[in-house]
């Protein structure tokens, strides 16, 4: 009898995930019809290549290559970022053109620009985007702030969902002001007193908020239909998407968008115990977020953009006390749940390698930005697949020959005996197409294992 999912080991779950990826289905559960036998062969070869690179059990046939862009595909297609955010069909068409032009082994989908109108409906204040604080040709950017006040840790700890709904969300979404008037859902217990819980839903600000939610939901769905169609088409053309969603290290959840960089730094000195309790409280939530997206998309790779743990942002002692324990625990929880954590070491992380190399072998894949790749290979690379390290400055400003030389060196060091996926190291907007092509071609030609 076949083992139930819950009874499987992490190894078995990962294997099942890859087997499922090898026979992709449409949303109705039917096998995807590939557009040609070549497309089907390319799709399966890419998955196998990526699987071998991640599992570290055997050397792939060649170095897999992926491109992890921010707005590059849309800018390269001659669009502004604003167009890519507001015209969903044009956005998907540009992404398809990008995939067909560069033919990487992996497709991360056209969802990076996101639905512009949706953010408008919600009055999103956490980011500025084209037409809303940044020029049409630039990418969206986060507005740093103390969206959670220093004295609000107890509120967050008591009930994170209540805190998010009644305090945090109304601060970052203008249209969600009505949430501040809602009572906790946990007050809904018995018949006596029941109706009191529902009175706020009659108030105009609350109704206004719900109206915005319905509109935003409809817009998100409209966008998701286009994205889903695009994903299906790209799969049928031979480009697998194994990216399942994202989650974060608990310290970054607080440091990025709740307390902000400055706020969390103050908290490490002024209220370290509350900060530690908060990262602990966020741990199961962040694990659930990753596993939930994997279940929704069927894709096991869970992206984790890492920020405040970079070199210099914390002392070694602070890193090991505040950042690493819950970051590692999120990864372990994801692995147990059948996901493949995909953390991105944004910036420099050289001083952290000796700590973060302590992960189970063949279960994670790390995007490396500017950390020395030879050092990363010697440490983290013993246990994990490394992705990236082609610098954004090089893709934007160098000559193709310089890119080729750099990529060959990467293949010789990071790619030795497998465990490496060629890619850019940081999400990028502007770049020369010939340089991106040089990166892909070098992996496909020079990166063949003999």
């Amino acid at each position: 009898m076949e083992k139930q999912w819950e009874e499987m080991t992490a190894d078995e779950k990962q294997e099942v995930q890859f087997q499922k990826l090898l026979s992709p289905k449409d949303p109705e559960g039917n096998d995807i019809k590939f557009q040609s036998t070549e497309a089907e062969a390319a799709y399966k070869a890419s998955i196998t290549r990526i699987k071998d690179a991640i599992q570290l059990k055997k050397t792939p046939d060649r170095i897999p290559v992926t491109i992890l862009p921010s707005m590059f595909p849309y800018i390269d297609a001659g669009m502004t970022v604003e167009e890519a955010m507001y015209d969903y069909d044009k956005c998907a068409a540009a992404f398809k053109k990008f995939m067909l032009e560069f033919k990487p082994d992996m497709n991360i989908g056209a969802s990076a620009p996101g639905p512009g109108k949706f953010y408008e409906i919600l009055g999103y204040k956490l980011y500025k985007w084209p037409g809303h604080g940044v020029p049409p040709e630039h990418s969206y950017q986060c507005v740093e702030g103390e969206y959670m006040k220093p004295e609000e840790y107890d509120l967050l700890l008591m009930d994170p969902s209540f805190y998010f709904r009644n305090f945090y969300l109304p601060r970052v979404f203008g249209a969600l002001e009505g949430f501040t008037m809602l009572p906790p859902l946990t007050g809904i217990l018995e018949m006596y007193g029941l109706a009191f819980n529902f009175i706020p839903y009659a108030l105009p600000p609350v109704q206004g908020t719900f109206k915005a939610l319905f509109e935003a939901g409809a817009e998100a769905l409209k966008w998701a239909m286009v994205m889903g169609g695009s994903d299906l088409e790209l799969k049928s053309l031979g480009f697998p998407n194994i990216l399942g969603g994202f989650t974060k290290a608990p310290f970054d959840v607080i440091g990025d968008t709740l307390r902000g960089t400055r706020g969390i730094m103050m908290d490490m000195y002024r209220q370290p115990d509350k900060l530690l309790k908060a990262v602990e409280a966020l741990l199961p939530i962040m694990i659930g977020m990753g596993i939930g997206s994997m279940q929704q998309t069927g894709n096991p790779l869970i992206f984790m953009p890492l920020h405040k743990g970079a070199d210099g942002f914390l002392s070694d002692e602070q890193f090991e006390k505040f950042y690493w324990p819950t970051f590692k625990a999120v990864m372990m929880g994801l692995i147990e749940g059948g996901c493949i954590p995909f953390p991105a070491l944004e910036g420099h992380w050289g001083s952290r390698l000796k700590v973060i190399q302590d992960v189970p072998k063949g279960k994670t894949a790390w995007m490396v930005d500017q950390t020395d790749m030879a050092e990363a290979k010697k440490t983290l690379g013993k246990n994990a697949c490394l992705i990236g390290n082609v610098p954004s400055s090089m893709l934007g400003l160098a000559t193709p020959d310089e890119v080729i030389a750099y990529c060959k060196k990467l293949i010789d060091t990071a790619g030795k005996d497998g465990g490496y996926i060629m890619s850019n190291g940081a999400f990028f907007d502007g770049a020369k197409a010939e340089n991106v092509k040089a990166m892909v071609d070098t992996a496909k030609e020079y990166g063949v294992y003999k």
Partner: protein
Amino acid sequence: MAGKLGQLLSDLKEPEALAFVDQALGKGTAAEELLEETKEGMNIVGERFAKGEYFIPDLVFSGEILRGIVQKLEPKLKAGTGKEAKRLGKVVVGTVAGDIHDIGKDLVVFMLDVSGFEVTDLGIDVPAQKFVDAIKETGSTVVGLSGFLTLAFDSMKETVDAIQKAGLRDKVKIMIGGGQIDDQVKSYTGADAFGKDAMEAVKLTKGWIGG
């Protein structure tokens, strides 16, 4: 060797440092004297950061303690003292057009300030012309351009070009910094140097201005 307040500040002992200021003021110690000790304390913080003993959170927290101390001292300072003593030179800093990232830029401003430079902080998303105007108005001889995005490479280049066009290029040294900035970007933009962190910005500025 710093005085007691300088020590408390440089060891990041916030409640103790603030209590010490209250006590000292109560006993009639001159605010000017305490401000001098505070400066010594900040110099020690800067040195420890340069040596790799302190990290960004230590810097940011020392700035927060400093703010608390200055708030207590300010009402007691005689007009005109303390504020602008001897400054080593003038620097203009800002995040270039189209980019709204401020963390790295703020750290550079802070470190230049505690290192004794007079810094004009133009903020974020700063158009090239505003840099040109600020150089003219302040007579600054060093300009720091910050940018996190790859699209900032072009904004930096445009800013350097605008400074050139205004006839100011040989009057200023230009340094750049930010997430993806390296030697290649430096050459592309026409800047004089790039730095990977706030300490390098101080080193470059000291090299150009002296001090």
